[in-house]
């Protein structure tokens, strides 16, 4: 078995509490499918047959997915606040091979084989997917106005070929200067530092990373702690490596005293493959005279940058709306056969429904209702003479006559009474809007 897939679906959606107060994040409907469906679909298309899903108990109950894969749900209770690394530690018994970690909020049609190929070819410790950060173009409803200043940038250093990850730091961690190790520059004199990249939270990790996590309990989050640690460790020499091997019999204590070096977990059967690269004439860096696979370099981190727009994580409200807007095109790419307008929807007036709107099952849409660029969930009742533009309407919503909805998000079970005129609003679940409200 080469890979095991793990989907992290236990997150709370801390950046969009308005939406997630009623619905847990993995179940948020995007294009009338729960958010969790998208990463699972990605894995299924790539050929995975089994996936481990880490989630909370109540989510699993509400989930109804039709996938051919065997889903292995692992529950973590609500009380304990577990980071992503903690979750991996929790399931480390199940992990026997290299692992592919996905976050539940990834909607993309990237070719997974490209990320994995980099991982395989270069025998890397970590392979991750990054995307060009989209420009925040529109203001999300429910948030007044001003864009927050971009202070959460990541500085990512890549080498000339664009494949090797050399440096990663978050702006928040740096005071005023960017500190780069000399050893990095000696080997890769040309380094491109990019700030416009966002992490897509898709990681391929080697098995020994999980072992390292098990031993090292101080790391709680993958993204913010483990990954930078791995990237930093690429170029530091494992002085303790050889010593560690010798002293193994002597004292385990010694090992614990020393900072638990990840190199000590790397099994030594890599040495079998050493003669081959010596004889081949490929080198991964131009900078200096060292051998290709320099002794100090045990962990390589590589990354794949996804150009193009079809990759997003759904973290904030703005992204959520953006994702919904992109979903119709995405679904086409994913080869979904279902028509955008569900069969059981009763639409009296087809002509008024725009071509990129998605209408869920059992939805009734009355006459003279025009729907453009919107997503309407299932079991909704939309009455007559309603104009809906750029909206996301979730399940079981009732919209009475004469309403005009623009740019809004309406959550489950809401009722919009007659004549309401709603613009750029976020309406929570079970709300009831009175007649002629604004």
């Amino acid at each position, binding site marked *: 078995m*080469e*890979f095991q897939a793990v989907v992290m679906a236990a997150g709370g959606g801390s950046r969009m509490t308005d939406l997630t107060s009623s619905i847990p994040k993995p179940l948020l409907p995007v294009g009338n499918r729960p958010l969790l469906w998208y990463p699972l679909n990605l894995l299924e298309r790539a050929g995975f047959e089994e996936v481990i899903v880490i989630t909370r108990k109540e989510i699993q109950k509400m989930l109804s997915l039709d996938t051919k894969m065997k889903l292995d749900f692992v529950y973590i209770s609500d009380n304990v606040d577990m980071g992503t690394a903690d979750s991996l530690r929790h399931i480390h018994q199940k992990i026997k091979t290299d692992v592919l970690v996905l976050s539940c909020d990834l909607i993309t049609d990237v070719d997974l084989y490209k990320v994995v190929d980099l991982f395989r070819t270069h025998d890397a410790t970590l392979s991750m997917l990054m995307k060009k950060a989209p420009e925040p173009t529109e203001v999300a409803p429910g948030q007044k106005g001003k864009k927050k200043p971009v202070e959460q940038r990541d500085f990512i250093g890549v080498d000339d070929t664009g494949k090797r990850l050399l440096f990663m730091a978050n702006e928040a961690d740096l005071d005023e200067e960017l500190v780069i190790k000399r050893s990095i520059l000696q080997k890769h004199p040309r380094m491109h530092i990019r700030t416009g990249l966002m992490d897509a939270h898709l990681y391929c990790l080697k098995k020994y990373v999980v072992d390292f996590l098990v031993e090292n309990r101080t790391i709680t989050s993958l993204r913010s702690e483990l990954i930078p640690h791995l990237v930093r460790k690429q170029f530091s020499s494992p002085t303790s490596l050889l010593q560690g091997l010798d002293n193994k019999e002597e004292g385990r204590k010694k090992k614990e005293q020393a900072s638990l070096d990840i190199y000590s977990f790397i099994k030594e059967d890599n040495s079998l493959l050493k003669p081959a690269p010596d*004889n081949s004439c490929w080198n991964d860096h131009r900078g200096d005279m060292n051998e290709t696979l320099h002794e100090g370099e045990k962990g390589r981190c590589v990354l794949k940058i996804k150009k193009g727009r079809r990759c997003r994580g759904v973290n904030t409200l703005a992204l959520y709306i953006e994702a919904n807007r992109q979903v119709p095109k995405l679904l086409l790419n994913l080869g979904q056969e279902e028509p955008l307008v569900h069969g059981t929807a009763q639409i009296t007036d087809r002509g008024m429904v725009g071509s990129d709107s998605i209408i869920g099952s059992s939805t009734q849409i009355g006459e003279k209702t025009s729907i453009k660029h919107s997503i309407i969930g299932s079991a909704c009742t939309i009455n007559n003479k309603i104009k809906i533009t750029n909206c996301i309407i979730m399940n079981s919503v009732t919209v009475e006559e004469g309403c005009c909805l623009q740019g809004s998000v309406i959550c489950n079970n809401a009722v919009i009474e007659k004549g309401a005129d709603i613009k750029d609003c976020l309406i929570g679940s079970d709300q009831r809007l009175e007649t002629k409200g604004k």
Partner: protein
Amino acid sequence: MAEREAPGGEREPCRASGAAPGRGVSHVAPVPGAGPGAAPSVPVVVQGPELSREEKLQLRKEKKQQKKKKRNEKGTAAEPPEPGTAADPAQPRVTPHPASPPASANAPNDGEKPPGGKSKAELRAERRAKQEAERAQKQAKKAELGQGAAPAKPRLTPTEAPSVVKRLPEHVQVDDPAAQRKLAKKLERQQVPLRQDYGTKVNLFSHLHQYSRKKPLTQQMSIPSTVIHPAVVRLGLQYSQGIINGSNARCIALLEVFKQLIRDYSTPPNEELSRDLVAKLKPHISFLNQCRPLSVSMGNAIKFLKKEISCLPDTLREEEAKEKLQGTIDNYLREKIVLAAEAISKSAFEKINDNDVILVYGCSSLVNRTLCDAHTQTDRTFRVIVVDSRPRLEGRETLRRLVRHGIHCTYVMINAISYVLPEVSKVLLGAHALLANGSVMSRVGTSQIALVSKAYNVPVLVCCETYKFCERVQTDSFVSNELDDPDDLIVQRKGQAQLGGWAENKSLRLLNLVYDVTPPDLVDLVITDLGMIPCTSVPVVLRVKNVDQQ
């Protein structure tokens, strides 16, 4: 007259004149009765320098009769040659037999050389009979094989004469749809995806595959690969992306991966390890072949491994069998590659003298090792000129390794070789394979270097281990070669990619060859682990190897 008889007379001038042999002409003269006409007057010297024609014929006849008597005593085994013998004197010149011109040229020497067994005529007859029998056999076989033999050109191998009609490998039959369909079916059966060709090919090479590096085979496979072992997938990717390059490196990596495969293998019930393991290896080998065509070194290693597996005795348990196999693989690695490299390096650096200027081309692990060893283990001073060529630019790697060792190097591109050759004392080349007719198959550009070196009278030495010897015969670089990704030829300069739009131009084709064949007369010496042999001794080595393995 004396001069004409000189070859015959070599033996006896010392007797006749007491002078040293070897100067027949001048010493024949003083002998009285030297002329042919005077022969009857010197009956004593029956075996004299100038045997007249009549005497020679007489001698021949006597000897033949003696042999006949001997053979008749021995048995009837001599019967078949007899009728041939009778016919022979009548027809040596009538039937233009390939054996007869040399035989008749040897006629004057017939009398002097008492052949140990049959006479030349009888041997000739036997040969003829054998050849006719084989010809008849071949016709019969061809009639049987029918279609199978049709696209085959029987290879001119120097192996045994009743030739098995060898099929062309399908990797040189890309433009033959029938062969490609068979290949596709085979791959489907093994569940290995078929890699698509990329781009228009140059007409002369349309019978070869041309793949793109950007479209790896893993595109068509599921990600946790179940059919193909993950180590093999990784190896295939590393081959196709060019990370493992060079025939030694590829072979070593292949054998290591096979060791891992064998480790992870478990015999299914009701199956025998010796048969099942070979069957299990086949899809992996097809996969690697699709990623990048197998090199000759890899092919030989695979043949060896398959033979070892099928020769495993049935009595061994699975664990023991696996261990034994791993042991044989280790042995093969150690003997044929590692120790051979040491031996070659030792003999090669004997050839490096003080103040030598050595020219090397590209990146050959063996040549690099030789030069580094020569630098560290002897105190001879020499310098190296590294020649490089696009698009691979492998010479930079050689340069890096040599300079790191402290060897004085110069770096030029291949278009400059005629400028540097006047100061070069010898050329040291590596080889991908040595073919059965003595040609050297190596990185493209090697034959050019050999040619120019010949023009400048610089000795060309090729270093090659014996496990890379191949039974193929090639006189040109077209028939069996490898086409690399044509996009490698696109050059990026200041943001502009020259040749970037080559695919849109219908009349532009890019060719990126990987190997070329150097004819044997351009190579002066081949340094192998069996010693230093001339190029033409390769078939001998092959024959000896075959005998050894059987």
